[in-house]
């Protein structure tokens, strides 16, 4: 890492992680320990909303890692997020058991509704929490491995790669829409009851999931920071800036890209798994190409190749989205587009660029 960037980075890191730590402690306290009558009380709705933003922030980190540092513009990263979400959703479905509308102890409601007699083989094992959590990482990782291996080995780069990632997530969306796939068709998976025996609607469970999400965000952040600060991180930046040159000094570019892509997909999957119990549903719209485009915009607005920029961008844009879609739902997409154009024109380094510009006025 550049020495001056490391200084800025260090300050950004400290600031971000301190804020995150404070939020992790304060938000559950204000929700659980402060009586509802007090003006300081935070509603459970707000806690869950913040938790959702944080899972988005983790997703944005995964995009910043490959796009900001690696120059791999994935326009289908939502697919990995959704796969992680589905793995979690399948576990939560299996936990419903006899409490479903049809009371079938094994089959989820939608399967009973489709007159299925037995559980498809790929649903086996998801009743075990540990197995499901393994799949949260493994499924997106395996997809990224297969896809990345084919794409990078054939030296598909730039806009062509972006287009096929977009096609990937679109194809998955169409597949998951089909009832025959066994993932609940367009309704997806929902009506979750509890996780590890704790009621998902309870304030305590919500606060706990919030804290866990915050911890994963911090862990993901630190892992990404360590990676970009390592020699591997510098090789990845070298590939971004001069791919052919990196080959000629002896690095197998394909393997480096593949490694970082798979790592990023696993983080995106974990983010999806944290997202699902908080919003209570996962459906094929999570695969929609639009979602993947949006999350690239979060990173662009926050600032690429800084990591903290991605976190800030994801949280701010989603907060704006919450406010806008409540007040003027029909103009949200225009507002997002305008924001993107403005940031590209006036803040090419995103919001994080403002911070950096103030810290090193004379470069």
């Amino acid at each position, binding site marked *: 890492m*550049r020495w001056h960037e490391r200084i800025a980075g260090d300050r950004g890191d400290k600031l971000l992680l301190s804020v995150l730590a404070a939020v992790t402690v304060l938000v559950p306290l204000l929700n659980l320990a402060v009586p509802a009558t007090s003006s300081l009380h935070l509603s459970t709705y707000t806690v869950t909303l913040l938790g959702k933003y944080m899972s988005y922030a983790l997703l944005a980190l995964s995009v910043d890692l490959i796009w900001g540092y690696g120059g791999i513009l994935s326009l289908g990263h939502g697919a990995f997020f959704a796969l992680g979400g589905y793995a979690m959703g399948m576990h939560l479905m299996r936990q419903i058991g006899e409490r479903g509308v049809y009371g079938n102890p094994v089959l989820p409601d939608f399967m009973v509704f489709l007159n299925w007699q037995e559980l498809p083989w790929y649903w086996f094992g998801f009743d075990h929490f540990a197995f499901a959590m393994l799949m949260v990482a493994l499924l997106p990782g395996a997809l990224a491995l297969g896809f990345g291996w084919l794409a990078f080995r054939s030296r598909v780069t730039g806009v062509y790669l972006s287009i096929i990632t977009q096609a990937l997530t679109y194809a998955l969306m169409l597949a998951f829409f089909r009832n025959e796939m066994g993932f609940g068709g367009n309704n997806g998976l929902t009506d979750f009851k509890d996780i590890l025996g704790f009621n998902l609607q309870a304030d305590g469970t919500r606060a706990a999931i919030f804290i866990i999400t915050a911890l994963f965000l911090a862990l993901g952040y630190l892992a990404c920071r360590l990676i970009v600060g*390592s020699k*591997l991180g*510098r090789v990845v*930046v070298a590939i971004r800036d001069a791919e052919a*040159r990196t*080959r000629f*000094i*002896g690095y*197998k570019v394909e393997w480096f890209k593949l490694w970082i892509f798979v790592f990023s997909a696993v983080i995106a999957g974990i983010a999806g798994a944290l997202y699902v119990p908080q919003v209570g549903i996962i459906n094929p719209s999570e695969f929609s190409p639009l979602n993947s485009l949006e999350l690239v915009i979060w990173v662009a607005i926050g600032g690429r190749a800084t990591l903290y920029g991605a976190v800030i961008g994801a949280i701010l844009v989603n907060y704006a989205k919450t406010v806008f879609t409540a007040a003027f739902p029909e103009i949200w997409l225009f507002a997002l587009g305008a924001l993107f154009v403005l940031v590209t024109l006036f803040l090419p380094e995103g919001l994080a660029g403002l911070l950096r510009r103030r810290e090193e006025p004379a470069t």
Partner: protein
Amino acid sequence: MNRVRETGTPKVLGDDAALDTIEDTDLDTSHGPILYLEDVTVSFDGFKALNGLTLYIDDGELRCIIGPNGAGKTTMMDVITGKTRPDKGTVYFGQIIDLLQLDEPDIAQAGIGRKFQKPSVFEQQTVYENLELAMHTDKRVWPTLFAKLSGEQRDGIAEVLQLTGLTEQRNQRAGALSHGEKQWLEIGMLLMQKPKLLLVDEPVAGMTRQEIERTAELLLALEGKHSVVVVEHDMEFVRSIARKVTVLHEGAVLTEGHMKEVQRNPKVIEIYLGA
């Protein structure tokens, strides 16, 4: 004109694991040449960029290659470094390494370094980081993730900084260097790779006189320790460093020899020097 290259079993080095063996079994140059190009032909849409090119570079030699535009100089470098596959011909590095079986990173790891015509450094990273990235070491993914610079490696980088005169600028972004400094940094990166053979494409294009002299010193200092092939247009520069010159014309060797002999050769004067 064909020189003897023992036809042993060619070594195929597809996977990373096999790379380690290259370093151990030192390059076999027992028959003199370090690089053999024999009857190499490359055509692009019918145009023959290389036309039965046969060329040998001796171990430890500093060779200059000249020739008019389109003579095939850069294509020759592309073939040696794995960027372009020839239609026919053989390319061997030492006695046993068949370069046509390897890709770019394998060839680099086997000990061939290349400096591009346009200065090509990692502009967003510091001079020091550029040298560190080029450093000869295990370049597979996991070892790179956990790589830490050893004292010896630090010394190696410091030495190259010294040699290239970039010690002062070591923490500067490479993008902020002057044109000449970038060229030296790139030569420094080549040295960090500890190559046995350096291919240097037009090292002094766009340089001032002083910078050219400095570059000539740098390249002369390498002679003996490494084999160096320099492709250059600047005749004065070639005169100042060349021991042996090869003239390429229309994808094949026109003549080879001392700069003085070559300059007197009427064919050379006709196609190149006279122009």
